[in-house]
């Protein structure tokens, strides 16, 4: 399923359900109550960070962030063993763990800071867009406020255009009513 994860930080309440769901999805059992006992312990590939602090929750800004699956990915360019691969135009950047030597050059060049290290240090880990999962990525499914959504750029663009035009139309109607123009 092609698509990208779109983030709306204003909807994020920092509950970290996305982190939990991601870790469970990338565990062996894929079941929360078993995943917490697995060795090695599962790791989330998305992280929630504070953007702007405020004493009242709704005025605070927090956001999840995971791999942007760049087309001209700095991590792919720098990898000495070609362990990273972009699959599909709106598909994931994947790491072939058996090729990764853990040199961490990709970690160094990623502008988003979304590449992590596997617990045993033998390979890097990053969001894989849940490419083997049926349905949406686990984080998107888990988010209770829809701060994370999965769609193509075309779909996202359409949605935003419609929203922008709805605003414009409201203005047009109001303008007509107030006789600002004929």
């Amino acid at each position: 399923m092609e698509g990208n994860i779109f983030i709306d930080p204003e909807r994020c309440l920092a509950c970290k359900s996305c982190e939990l769901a991601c870790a469970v999805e990338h565990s062996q059992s894929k079941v929360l109550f078993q995943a917490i006992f697995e060795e090695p312990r599962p790791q989330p590939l998305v992280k929630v960070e504070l953007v702007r602090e405020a004493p009242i929750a709704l005025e605070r800004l927090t956001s999840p962030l995971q791999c942007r699956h760049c087309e001209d990915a700095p991590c792919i360019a720098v990898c000495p063993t070609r362990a990273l691969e972009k699959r599909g135009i709106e598909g994931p950047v994947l790491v072939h763990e058996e090729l990764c030597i853990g040199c961490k050059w990709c970690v160094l060049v990623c502008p988003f800071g979304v590449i992590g290290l596997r617990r045993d240090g033998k390979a890097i880990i990053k969001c894989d867009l849940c490419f083997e999962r049926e349905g949406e990525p686990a984080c998107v499914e888990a988010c209770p406020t829809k701060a994370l959504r999965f769609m193509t750029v075309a779909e996202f663009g359409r949605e935003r255009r419609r929203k922008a035009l709805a605003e414009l139309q409201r203005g047009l109607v109001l303008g007509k009513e107030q006789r600002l123009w004929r």
Partner: protein
Amino acid sequence: MRVKDRASERSSDLASQFMLRKAEREGIETAWDRLEKQQPQCGFGQLGICCRNCNMGPCRIDPFGEGPTKGVCGATADIMVARNLLRMIAAGAAAHSDHGRDLAHTFLLVAEGKGNGYEIKDQDKMMALAAEYGIETQGRTKEEIALDLAKAIYAEFGKQEGPIQFTRRAPEKRVELWQKLGVDPRGIDREIVECMHRTHIGVDNDYTNLILHGIRTSISDGWGGSMIATDLSDVLFGTPEPVKAVANLGVLKEDEVNIVVHGHEPTLSEMIVAAASDPELVELAKKHGAEGINVVGMCCTGNEILMRHGIPIAGNFLQQELAIITGAVEAIVVDIQCIMPSLPDVAACFHTKVISTSPKAKFPGATHIEFEEARGYEIAKEIVKTAVDNFPNRSAAKVSIPDVKAECIVGFSLEAILKALGGSLDPLIEAIKSGAIKGIAGVVGCNNPKVKQDYNHVNLVKELIKNDILVVNGGCNAIACAKAGLMTLEAAEQAGEGLKGVCKKLGIPPVLHMGSCVDNSRILMALAAMAKALGVDIPDLPVAGAAPEWMSEKAVSIGTYFISSGVFTVLGTVPPVLGSANVTKLLTEGAEDVVGGKFAVETDPFKAAQLMIDHIMAKRRALGI
């Protein structure tokens, strides 16, 4: 490269800053570090719209309206927030009332002749209480009277039908209002049990009904459990009178055995203080190379021994780990409430022993020496000996006591205030009528690392006294003000001209320490006395309350009993209620129409002060003064 100094951002107290730098150098984790690691904290929790009360959950409500707007059972945000708030009130009231119960038990033991080290120190107060309970005193021994009184007070906890005797100290109009609203408490334990029942899945689902019961429960705390704790502590240990003392970590001594008593019940701290002057133990200390035994207090139990004996107070809530980090503490002796479970981890970096004493409060890593009142002095000696024997284990290289402390005058029970006024409230009321004193503010509550330590406490109080508002305080706020030098006679210089004049005339500081957190009941009694003297109800008084850095559930109960008593109360940290606009509106607006008091939330202490000043001035205008 200039490294940002986090210490000065975390606390406005110089002693704390000193210790935080030491903690950072030595890699010791504190509450501040743990708060940082928790960031960002969950917004559902912050808003109060997360419910774990049943296994159909856990449920969350999406405050943006797109996700679920109800829990599985159908609970809306209003219901979730109200239920969560009620459980916080229940927990806070339970803590205070259980403390009262323990004091009542000790008093009962004394009355039964099994006191063993405890005795009735304030005979007059005991007789006054007996009269209040309608106990026959003519031709009876004080032992007989004490026994009847002890049984009557002990019974308040298990009552099914009210009233709770001390609620009748409130002005008549107040009691009538509570009765009309159906919030006159029936029994101390009963109200708390009903909180838990009502918040069980499928019971009370009306947010107003839930909050009304919260009001009732809080009254059973403030005018019940807490007031019993205060009065019985006075009977057993003496009613506080003004006394000079010293506050902050600088009271720890390099050349003495340092014992910190932390927690809440004076039944323990009074015994530790007594045992520490036992000649055998002082001798033992000297044998180990110490000059003596230095007992210092922290938090509310510290306030209790501070108020009654002028025992130095080493700090407030956020300084408990920092005291250990000085490396100079042989033992920190704890009982119940506000004790961080991290203490044994911090103590493990030093020779310090964390000694737990209550069967209700155990801490992994602590040494447990269970305290029983019946053998109080004996056990206290054992505890002090453990500390004294630990002195040789102190590593001088690790010791660093900040040379920061401040003098203070404390001990302002209501009785002491009346004495200072010459025997009646009239001089105070005259001062208020003339405008020399604009009004009275009660400032209480904890520390919270979400606020720069003591910044809100001290700045709020300074603003209030600058505006001629007399401040009475307690708990960690009182400790903060003591440390900031606001409780000296000289502090009157920081007050407005009117308040300054009154303080100088009466020889009192502009900020009067009324005691521990259960001693907030002293503030209630002061309000009742003032209302009676002026012939009004409490909401008419030119008074306001504040909890500028609160964190505990006890504070939620306290805040609720203050608004239920008709006092406008400003909170300095945001409570978890904003997820329900209705509950928030009820607490910050509607409550005033119902009980005469309401909450405001203001994290900036200067703005908070202005809210309180405006409120007080409005009340003055309404009274025509």
